[in-house]
Every structure is written in C-alpha cells, then in structure tokens.
C-alpha cells in the first residue's frame, strides 16, 4: 500500500499540541480556583509559570509544524478526495485553528507582561517585559486571551467533528494524521 499522509514530525507535533492544548484548558480552569497570590499564598506560582511556558512553547511548535507541513504536503490532496465545499471548510477550519492558537498564546503573554508578573522560560531564562505594569492593558489582553480561547475550543470541536465524520465513513482521510 502506498504511504500517504503527513510526515512523522508533523504527526508527533500534532498530537503533542493536542494534549498540551487540552492540558492548558483543564489546568487553567483549576488554577483560577486557587487563592489569589500573596506572600502567604503561593499556590498559583507553579501552575501559572507552567501555563505561560507551555503557551509560548506551543507557538514555537506550531511554527515548526506549519513549516514542515508546507514542505511535505500529503498525498493525495484534499481537493482530490473531498467535495469542493468540504475541502474549503477543512482549509478554513485549519486557518482559524492556527490563528486562534497563535492569538491566544500571544494575548496571554501580553496580558502577563502588563500584569507585572515576570515570566521565566522553563525556569531558566528571564523573559523581557513587553510593557510596564498597566492594569487596563492587562485586563484588555486578558479578555482577548479568554475569548480567543473560547473560540479555539469551539473550532477544536469542529475539527474533531470532521475527524470523527471521516473516521465513521472510513474514507481514508483521517489516515493522513493517523499513521505509524
């Protein structure tokens, strides 16, 4: 059988990305239920740093993934195996998905920058502030972060629905991202 689908690098990055994104959702809902940070209450320190670090790493991962994807395009092309409407929908879904991941990570980092709380990349490199402490900008970027995350979750649901649809039809489309 002829080998089709994305390269193994894209495949591994895709599944790492998927687990990380769901981890970011579930851990953020939990960590926002921890006591507000103070000298005595330091429970938020580790999960917030981890959240920011994972978010920043996701941006790097997605850039690598898009690059590798563009270099090694899977065969056959989507337009050859899907109706034009479905092929267009798949492209739109992916574009919004990538944009929302990028926008949510960037807005999260900017919100953090204006909050006055520093970010240390994987507990090793102190990252520069993008701005001074500013309550209004912090809230603005925090709101953008929140809404882009909700849109991301919705678009992930569409993305997963598409994968399930093709899996139930057993038309071979999902094998592009599901191969060893």
């Amino acid at each position, binding site marked *: 059988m002829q080998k089709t689908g994305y390269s193994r690098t894209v495949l591994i990055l895709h599944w790492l990305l998927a687990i990380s994104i769901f*981890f970011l959702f579930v851990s953020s809902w939990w960590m926002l239920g921890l006591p507000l940070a103070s000298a005595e209450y330091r429970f938020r320190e580790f999960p917030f740093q981890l959240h920011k670090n994972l978010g920043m790493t996701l941006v790097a991962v997605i850039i690598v993934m898009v690059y590798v994807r563009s270099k090694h395009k899977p065969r056959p092309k989507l337009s050859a195996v899907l109706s034009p409407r479905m092929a267009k929908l798949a492209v739109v879904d992916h574009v919004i998905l990538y944009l929302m991941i990028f926008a949510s990570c960037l807005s999260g980092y900017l919100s953090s920058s204006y909050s006055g709380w520093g970010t240390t990349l994987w507990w090793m490199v102190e990252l520069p502030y993008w701005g001074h402490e500013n309550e209004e900008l912090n809230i603005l970027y925090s709101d953008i972060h929140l809404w882009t995350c909700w849109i991301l979750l919705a678009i992930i649901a569409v993305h997963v629905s598409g994968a399930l649809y093709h*899996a*139930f039809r057993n*038309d071979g489309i*999902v*094998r592009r991202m*599901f191969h060893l």
Partner: protein
Amino acid sequence: MLPAPARETGGPAWASWLGVIAVLLGVLLAAWHSNEWMKLAIVGEPPYTIETMPEADCEADELEEEGLTLAECRQLALNVHSISISSPDWFKGFHMRISAAGLLFALATVFIGVALVDYRAWAATAAVPLFGGFAILDTVAFTGVVNTGPLIREMYLWPILLWFFIHLTIAVAAYAGRQNEREAAARLPRAP
C-alpha cells in the same frame, strides 16, 4: 469525491472509528491525569491547617481583574483544603500513582488508536487488554475514592464512574472487532 474502492485500501470500519475515538479519549485523559497529578502535588498537603491558615489577600483591584466577589476570594483560600481535610494519609500518594499510571495508559491509548486507524492486526489485539486495563485502573481509583471523605467522593466518584463505562465500552468494542476479524479470517478459503 473519493471513489468507493479507495475505502478498501485501509482497515475495517470498526477499527477506523474505534481508533479515532480512542485517540480523542486518550488526548483528553492525558490532559486530565497530568492536571490531577499537578493538583495533588500542589494542594494535596497545604502548608497550614484551616485553623492556622492566613487571611486571604483580596485587594479590590485584584478582585476586579479576576471578576471575583470578596466572598469568592475568601472561599478560594478555603478550597485549597478540600482535598487534605477529606482524605486519609494514603490518598495523596495513591491518587498521584493512579494519575501517573492513567497518563501512561492515555499515551498508550493514543498510540494504539493511531495503529487501529492505520490498520495493524496487532493493534486490534493490544487494544483489548489496554482499554480493559484502563477500566481496571478506573475500578481501583473508584475503590480508593470510596474510602475517602465526602468532599473527595463528591469531586471524583462520578467522573471516574463515567470514564469506567467509557473504557468498558471501547474495550468491548475492540473485543467484538477482533472477534469479527478472526471469524472473517477463518471463513477465508485455505490455500491448497
């Protein structure tokens, strides 16, 4: 559109849909178990008791930024104790081990799910003990949680029960699929 014969180049339909569902559940569970592990590591044993806990720091600007009321802010400090005051000494270690095992099982589920979609005969065989093992892990977790206090039981019993039935469902689906494959293979005419 994809012509019908192209469908024959892959595996059976049951493996395709079961594989994708297994991967989806594996991804969700990997995230959940990682968070559970972190949760227990951070608030499993708070550095103070409810009697000695410091007052929560609830400044007005922080409350506005977080969209919290003063009562909610104070409750957050109390919530940290929900796990420790309702769990026996063994629970933190037990639940962290269950979460670590759950994470490994979840990652294995993603791998086996991919192998089911990209149909490999060994994946159909491996899926049964893997998904069945997950159901057993849920049973162990459920039994442990039953023996804790009401706060922990309220938090975990229902989600664990839900996951148990999901794992049971996919384990039985994998078993039925494997049986179908074996019966189909047995019906094939043998080479002279």
